[in-house]
């Protein structure tokens, strides 16, 4: 996928999101104007307006580049190469399978922890995450999972007095 196509799709999605917000979400989920002060919808409308205008401008620029047969140079980070490794800009290809490997277990944890309780759900989650990261040393994985679950339990329960999520193991 070329950079022009990639950025066009991204900007079209933003424009679409803005339309949905302006036409449906903001009018439906904003309280009516009380008769004094600015409208409760004003800031939301301004925010969406900024996004829409900027995405529109980007689209015009991309379309002009496309019709002129130009290619955009590869996206560059702001800082020298050494600094890129530490975050800030990581422009590049979206890896959906990779994203799924870490997001799906996390979502499952949120759902399952309410039924199974903290200890078994968190232990299973950590084992799965370590497997997806690439670890295959089962003993090390098990020990790390047990230690992490236990340490976090102690910190939350006895350090801050916060109940861990879900039902208690020995209740």
């Amino acid at each position: 996928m070329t950079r022009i196509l990639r950025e066009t799709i991204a900007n079209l999605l933003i424009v679409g999101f803005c339309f949905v917000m302006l036409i449906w979400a903001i009018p439906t989920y904003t309280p009516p104007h009380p008769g004094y002060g600015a409208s409760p919808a004003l800031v939301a409308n301004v925010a969406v307006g900024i996004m829409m205008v900027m995405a529109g401008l980007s689209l015009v620029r991309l379309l002009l580049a496309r019709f002129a047969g130009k290619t955009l140079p590869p996206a560059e980070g702001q800082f020298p190469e050494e600094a890129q490794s530490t975050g800030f800009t990581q422009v590049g290809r979206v890896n959906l399978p990779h994203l799924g490997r870490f997001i799906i277990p996390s979502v499952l944890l949120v759902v399952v922890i309410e039924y199974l309780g903290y200890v078994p759900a968190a232990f299973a989650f950590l084992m799965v995450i370590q497997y997806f990261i690439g670890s295959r040393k089962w003993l090390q994985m098990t020990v790390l999972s047990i230690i992490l679950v236990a340490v976090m339990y102690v910190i939350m329960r006895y350090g801050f007095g916060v109940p861990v999520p879900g039902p208690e193991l020995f209740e």
Partner: protein
Amino acid sequence: MEMILAGLLDSITPASLMFVFAGVAIGVMIGAIPGINGPMAIALFIPITYYMSALTAIGFLVGLNKGAFFGGAISAVLLRTPGTPEAAATSWDGYPLTQQGKGEKALRMALYSSVAGDVISTGVLIAIAAPLAAVALFMGPAEIFALISLALTVIAGIGTNSICRGLIAAGLGLLAGTIGTEPVTALPRLTFDVYQLGGGLSLIPVAIGLLAFSEILIQLERFTGKDSGEHAANVFSAKREDRLLSLKEFFANTRTLLRGSAIGIFVGAMPGLGAPVASFMSYDQAMKRSKHKEEFGKGRLEGIGASESANSAVVGASLIPLFVLGIPGNLAVAMLMGAFMIHGMQPGPLMFKENAQLMYGIYGSLVIASLFLAVIGRFGLRLFCKAVEIPAMMLYPIVIFTCIMGAYLGRSDIFDVGVMLIFGVIGYFMRKFDFSYVAFLIGFILVPEWERALQQVVIISENNPNMFFERPVAMALMALTFFVIGKTFWSNIKAGRDCRAAKAKASAQAKDG
């Protein structure tokens, strides 16, 4: 005077000292780990500060930030992998010294330069923040509205190469910040009938998702499943002169350190620039003004001093816009602003009036954190070097699990973990498409104040938009906002033209050749 003394005494209570010490130590440790930077550490540790007093919480987080700035230099010097972006310039001279067996000397130079920059910058903050805040008190809602608009515009340029994408990110941040209870009607707005959103999106899961979780997702993409196996301890020489930094060697760089600190203070006080800019600018100036230009990049202590003094000077100076105007200039300060708000305070000039004792307590904690940094760095250097050896295979699960439990800890609500995951995915896409998550987060944090100022302007002026024209400072700030937008657009267009012209010239030359 009583307030000053009481505040300073608060900062030397055992609890306060203990948490500042812990903050600095944890900060150095975390900063040394490549891929975990100061703002990310603050986001991960903010949930814990819920259970502290305001002063200990801010002292802990400031210590964490200061420690992380120096910690970034450890992996930069030992592995040429900066722990934080601002330490990149440190690696240019630090790593060659490590290869020569002088890694410990390079680290000592980095430490003392960091402390020097930090102390000078803290001194400047203490000297000028309160007098400037007294002037800022004369600003009304129109000026505050205009100032926040200007800050958002300037900040939209951080972390992206395009002002369009920066403004889109800032707009999204503003939109996310409007979710919750509307301030005038006190009715729910954009909550989509989800009752947990009634109080608005909590900063903690949003910040953890955007800063930490998305960063780990990106890093794991590059992670090959094998640890590098590099051992920092092997790079220390047995020779005394290779390990220790003499006073003569340190003071030979006094001018560089002072210049670096001045650059750091200037950059830190300007919203939107940030420590990496200060570090690169200072290194560049040091090289241009040095009599030994050719030695830069080959292991010159001056290069390390320039980079570290500048980036550490940013820490104290970046608190100036926060304390004087209530505007965060960079991500770390935006996180600190969030911590202030969690403890029921609105950073800005009024803090010197309403929370004077606390402010002087924070000043005390800032000075103590600098001292602790010098002591902890001096005596724990070898221990902290071990942090770079933590296997990634163990580090990543720990960080992921901390993200999840940290998001939960804030309000003890599993819903916030879901929010964190959503913003983790949003952050992942923002990074991939070069949208500035920094602008998003600062927009999200500033929107309540921006909206409050706007509502006050509309109510006071009875819906008369001419109020801005009757307030010269507000009008000037709004004009400056539009000027910044126009200038940035023009610079982008001009840069594109220059780039195309250079390419055309290069291809013409290639044909001729």
